[in-house]
């Protein structure tokens, strides 16, 4: 609620200096502009010559909020203060604000009303005190100095600023404190305030404060040879929300143009990779910066509101409309900017109704890829990434996150002995499960055709789940059985994951902390298919970033030997957000042709399990485990424990809605989105 419409910072209405007078009690000694605060008629004036009474009256030209000219300000104040007698007259004649037209005649409030908060008892001294009258707010920092040299063994004074009642004073609090501190220092060193010789200079200080802070938001007032008041008001911004690794910063100004030599080194490095595509974690890798420092840098930029954050773009993402589409659909700027922004160069720009229609067809549950196929986006020449991010930036489109939840086994029987379970039996179970999907038909087209006759029935469900006593799952259910423990497990994992930043300094490869479950670990039921390791060399040899993506999942037990290589692998893993990929929807999806055989048996990191509690969405998981959605989905499928038959899997199957069915026995995905 800034009081001034045009100015960010609240405007100082008045500055005054008050002391505890030995005879009169609390009393205003100087105020600028004069006469705004009503004081009771003075009986005796002890410090007789108020210097301002004689100053010539020059109407103040209204040139506030002009460009800061600190040079003038400081020069003016320096001359006026270092030698308080001769040059001040001229300087003040120029800057004297006392005849501000209009408001000068108005009395703001009576000093008596607030005197007990301005010059309070000693308990309140040394504290920031803000009191209010009907229309104004007075902020000050009363100080009490003790010593035998003072008449009552103490000196109490306060330099207060007066603002409008509704002003937000957050940005002035440090100012008030600092002014008070400097004045106290001066008083303690040279009796600047109490000596009648120097105290008239306070009036000039008040003038400078009033003028410079209102006009330039900064000031430099030398007081004596050692002390000066150097102030600059910084606009007050609230703290930015915490930066998460999966956020994608997007510059709102041209950051690289603003980089200066004296910038923080990390910031310079980080800025270079802010392109609206890279997420924080990736930026840290690309810029070769510490993740925590990168987060700090990003949040610093967020604080100054020069960037905003959006989500990671993948073709597997889902989006939905928000309420404000109803206003933004007719907003002229949205209409005009959208076409040129989202269309690839050289293509004809579709008209707004067409674009709007396309936006309206983005729905939760429908991936961008589905949507592209349904509406033949290629032919329209639309850059899908830009199309989606346009909506997100404008605020009428919202990312829908997947929140995987691992359901505990519903059987009440105790878990069977891990040794009983052979891979064969496990596979059998899987197969039997794939035949009976109780809820599948409500989610997917394909399964509807397969199991059209099946309908919801509770007994059947329990019979199915009863057969599920793989050690993995029982272990899961023990984690998930009671809420607090599960939460703590998730926290523990997160903690562990965070620690990897620290571990990284030890030179170990970044991926080494991920403990993949694979066949060598006893009791894990997903070892049924062992084709993956055999296939994998082929995968690597086929080359390309896609195969390297697979290599992460297929060589889980052997993380790349050197950290540098690890980094490269990671980069490849996160390719869905690479600009090149994103810009060419013709090849939108990394192909997992080689990962096909390892579909149901992909080893997954064990740490993933406790995080499947519905509190972590897939972007978060993807960034934590450095796996894109395709890989993550395979992991979820593995965890969900249903093996899929190859026959029914189309090329982009993992992007279709089938994933929800295929995991519905133990792992289902909730999609949430914002209003």
């Amino acid at each position, binding site marked *: 609620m800034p009081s001034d419409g045009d100015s960010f910072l609240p405007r100082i209405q008045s500055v005054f200096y008050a002391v505890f007078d030995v005879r009169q009690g609390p009393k205003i000694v100087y105020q600028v502009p004069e006469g705004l605060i009503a004081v009771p008629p003075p009986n005796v004036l002890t410090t007789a010559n108020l210097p301002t009474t004689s100053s010539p009256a020059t109407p103040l030209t209204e040139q506030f909020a002009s460009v800061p000219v600190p040079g003038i300000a400081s020069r003016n104040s320096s001359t006026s203060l270092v030698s308080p007698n001769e040059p001040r007259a001229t300087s003040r004649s120029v800057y004297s604000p006392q005849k501000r037209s209009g408001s000068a005649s108005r009395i703001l409030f009576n000093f008596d009303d607030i005197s007990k908060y301005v010059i309070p008892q000693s308990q309140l001294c040394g504290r920031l005190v*803000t009191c209010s009258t009907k229309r104004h707010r007075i902020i000050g920092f009363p100080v009490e100095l003790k010593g035998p040299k003072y008449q009552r063994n103490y000196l109490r004074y306060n330099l207060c600023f007066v603002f409008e009642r509704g002003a937000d004073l957050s940005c002035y609090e440090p100012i008030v404190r600092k002014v008070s501190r400097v004045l106290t220092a001066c008083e303690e060193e040279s009796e600047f305030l109490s000596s009648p010789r120097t105290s008239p200079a306070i009036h000039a200080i008040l003038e400078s404060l009033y003028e410079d802070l209102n006009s330039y938001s900064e000031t430099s007032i030398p007081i004596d040879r050692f002390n000066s008041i150097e102030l600059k008001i910084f606009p007050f911004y609230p703290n930015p929300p915490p930066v998460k690794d999966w956020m994608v910063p997007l510059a709102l100004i041209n950051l690289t143009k603003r980089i200066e030599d004296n910038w923080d080194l990390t910031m310079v490095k980080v800025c270079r990779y802010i392109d609206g595509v890279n997420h924080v974690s990736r930026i840290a890798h690309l810029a070769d910066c510490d993740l925590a420092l990168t987060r700090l840098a990003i949040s610093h930029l967020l604080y100054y509101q020069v960037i905003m954050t959006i989500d990671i773009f993948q073709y597997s993402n889902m989006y939905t*409309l928000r309420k404000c589409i109803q*206003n933004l659909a007719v907003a002229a700027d949205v209409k005009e900017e959208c076409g040129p922004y989202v269309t690839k160069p050289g293509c004809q720009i579709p008209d707004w109704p067409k674009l709007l229609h396309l936006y309206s067809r983005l729905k939760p549950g429908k991936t961008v890829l589905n949507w592209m196929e349904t509406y033949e986006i290629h032919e329209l020449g639309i850059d899908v990434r830009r199309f989606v991010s346009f909506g997100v930036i404008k605020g009428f489109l919202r990312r829908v996150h997947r929140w995987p939840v691992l359901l505990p086994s519903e059987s009440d029987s105790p878990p069977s002995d891990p040794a009983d379970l052979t891979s064969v039996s496990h596979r059998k179970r899987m197969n039997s499960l794939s035949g009976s999907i109780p809820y599948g038909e*409500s*989610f997917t087209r394909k399964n509807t055709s397969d199991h059209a006759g099946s309908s919801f029935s509770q007994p059947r469900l329990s019979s199915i789940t009863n057969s599920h006593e793989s050690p993995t799952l029982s272990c899961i259910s023990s984690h998930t059985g009671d809420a607090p423990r599960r939460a703590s497990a998730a926290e523990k994992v997160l903690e562990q994951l965070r620690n990897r930043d620290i571990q990284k300094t030890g030179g170990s490869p970044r991926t080494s902390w991920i403990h993949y479950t694979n066949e060598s670990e006893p009791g894990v039921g997903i070892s049924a298919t062992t084709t993956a390791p055999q296939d994998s060399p082929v995968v690597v040899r086929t080359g390309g970033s896609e195969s390297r993506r697979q290599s992460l999942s297929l060589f889980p037990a052997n993380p790349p030997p050197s950290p540098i290589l690890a980094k490269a692998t990671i980069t490849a893993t996160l390719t869905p957000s690479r600009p090149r990929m994103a810009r060419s929807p013709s090849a939108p999806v990394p192909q997992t042709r080689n990962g096909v055989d390892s579909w149901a048996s992909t080893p997954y990191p064990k740490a993933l399990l406790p995080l499947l509690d519905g509190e972590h969405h897939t972007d978060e998981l993807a960034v934590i485990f450095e796996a894109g959605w395709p890989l993550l989905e395979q992991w979820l499928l593995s965890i969900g424990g249903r093996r899929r038959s190859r026959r029914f899997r189309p090329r982009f199957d993992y992007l279709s*809605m089938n994933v929800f069915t295929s995991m519905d026995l133990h792992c289902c995905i*909730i999609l949430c*989105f914002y*209003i």
Partner: protein
Amino acid sequence: MAETLLAILLVTTSANGSSIVYRWPPSPVASPRFSRAKPDSALTSLHLDNPWRASHPSDAPPDPAKESIPLQNDPEREWKRPSTQRDRSMSFSSSGSHHSSGRNSPTKDMLECRSIEDEYNHLFGYSSDFLANLLCPQRSMCHQKFELLVDDLAFIGHPVSAEDDGAWRFKPEKPKLNDRGRESRIRRVSQTDRASSASPPRPASSEKPPPAASLWLQRFHFVMVLDVPDPSSSASGNITKYFDIIYEQIAFPVAAVLFQEQVLSNFVEEECDTLGSLKDDCSAKGDEFSSYIAQALDASSIAPAMKILYEALKSSSVAYITIHDLPLELQLPPYLDVLLHSEEENEPDCLTAPDDDDYQVWGQEMSFGYKLPSLTAWKSLLLLDDGPEGIDPYANLRRSLIGTGDRSLVEGLIKFLEIASVTLSLADMASLLDWDLDTQVFPTVRWLVHHRRAKVVDILHPGLKTVFTLPAKFDAPLSQLTIEFNKQFGTSGVLPLPRLLSAISTSSSKQSDTHFFASVVQSKEAIPLYHEVVLWMLKRDMLITLHLHIRIVATVRLKERVKAAAKGRSRDRKGSGRKGQSKLRNQLDADGDQSPPGIAWLALSPKGARRYTRDPSVGGSRNSRLSELILHDDSDSEGRRREESETPESQDEIDNHSGEEDEASMINDPGRATPLQRRWLSAMSEGKDPVLVRRFEQINQYFDGRRTDDEILYRAEMSRRELREILHHYDEYLQTFLHPS
């Protein structure tokens, strides 16, 4: 709510000075907030901008025991308020040799020395006399809002005072706006609790007309002490607003009631006498302070009221307090604390200023922080019968209503409660009860919502054929919700909650049958059961109803057709200046279409106009962002880019205007269509069934993308089937949007 509330105080002033008569909680503690290491006290303390140093001026005689009760256990992170009273008693008792290093060591001593005396006389580290004096301002500052911030404590209240002659009376004349506001406020307050307005002769105030004679009470002040929230966690100005709301909703009404009772029956003074003598007794007997506090709860009515108020505010429920047999219901907006947290986590939407409509419908009190949907005839009402109290939901309600003696009112309300159901719209309820919507139904709904007995929701289809989606966040962790859900429905054969949510969340991607029945329920027999499930979820805000919004598109083909027809018509009377004129006309049409300040703007009602002017401003700020973004992409010299970005834009504009007829466009507000748009609209109906055409003409004014299907059906008095028919037949020209309203 009110997470910052620390204490409630009642301060009085007499000729002898001020004192804190009662406070709740008995020993409030300000939360320590300086998480910084303790500065080395050996250094000179010329650092007033360091609050810790500031509290220990160096040239004051270094006082070893300048510590109050430890606020928390970590000595490195604590910051103590000095308290002179205690200091003295401390320095007598403690050995007195902890100079600078002994900062932390005296804690043990002090705990021992924390005498009963201390508890009576100290509060927040200040002596209570000092605090009382501080909180009783000059008489000239009375009868207005009081706000004092001392470091991290905020004192908010509304001090009131007697007249110059010491008598308590209402201000006879209303010279200032403020006073009038206050008076009317008092009246309103006493009206809100119906008991007081309905029973004018209050039992205790038999001798009312002559202002009750006050013996000593000059001023009193009902103060709320708050912990000043961290300003950096919220947007600028929010904290001010936060304080204002607490003042308006709590501090002022209580002060007003107390003032009224003081004027009418010298109530406050009598209470203070009771409390004061009790306090003196207790302290003379050497009783614990807590025993005074406990006895006071029985002895007076203000004391328990303060206790209940504090506890209710802390637990974010409605406070039902009784002051001098005057029932009061006070509460803070449930989402008030949202103000204190930065907006990222909560939606920006929820903090936007309510529409003018909402403001009028809900009233000033409930316009902020309640996150209320708009109150309209096509909404429905969900009764929260298992309210937070859990016991008998209507007991309190009945009690407060029966007290009024207005039997018809009570009966009406009971009838309303019986009939209310989520499957009925408010308009339906009104017609069933034969009540007037605006004067009877809405006030009842407001009352119920304000007392948290009900909430306004979207109407639920009786067959559960409503399209739902999930909110961004649930109020509780999913695991906890699942447990609750299992408790409620575990045995009834409903899907487990996560699976249910999964089904709901994926439902809207399908081409058809996106509603709840098709995606979850699937059998008619299960409807009653799932009805309960839906209610359960609605009560916990776990479902959001998606609404259909419709817009009209004028396609290119349509435009060509209209153009051709117009040409044919005007061919015979084609004038010389015709062309330019029609171009101008087009221009005007285009302007009207985009609804910036043109003719269309004038045609709007003031309300609508304001809404229109607001929207572009929102877009405007975003606009700059995006243009920056575009610039960012082709990083080049600024001037050139500016030029580049502007030329195509203006070019585009020209194209858009002159070539409006060559490309498809939306008809943004069919209700105020331009003549050309009207021609388009009628051309859409060419060759259609006349019944349909009539219906379309009747209904197309609502196809502006803002109105929900519910609203359209209500306004056009149409059935859903008829609407579907129109959507089907005019498919070519209509775009549908599914999003929350």
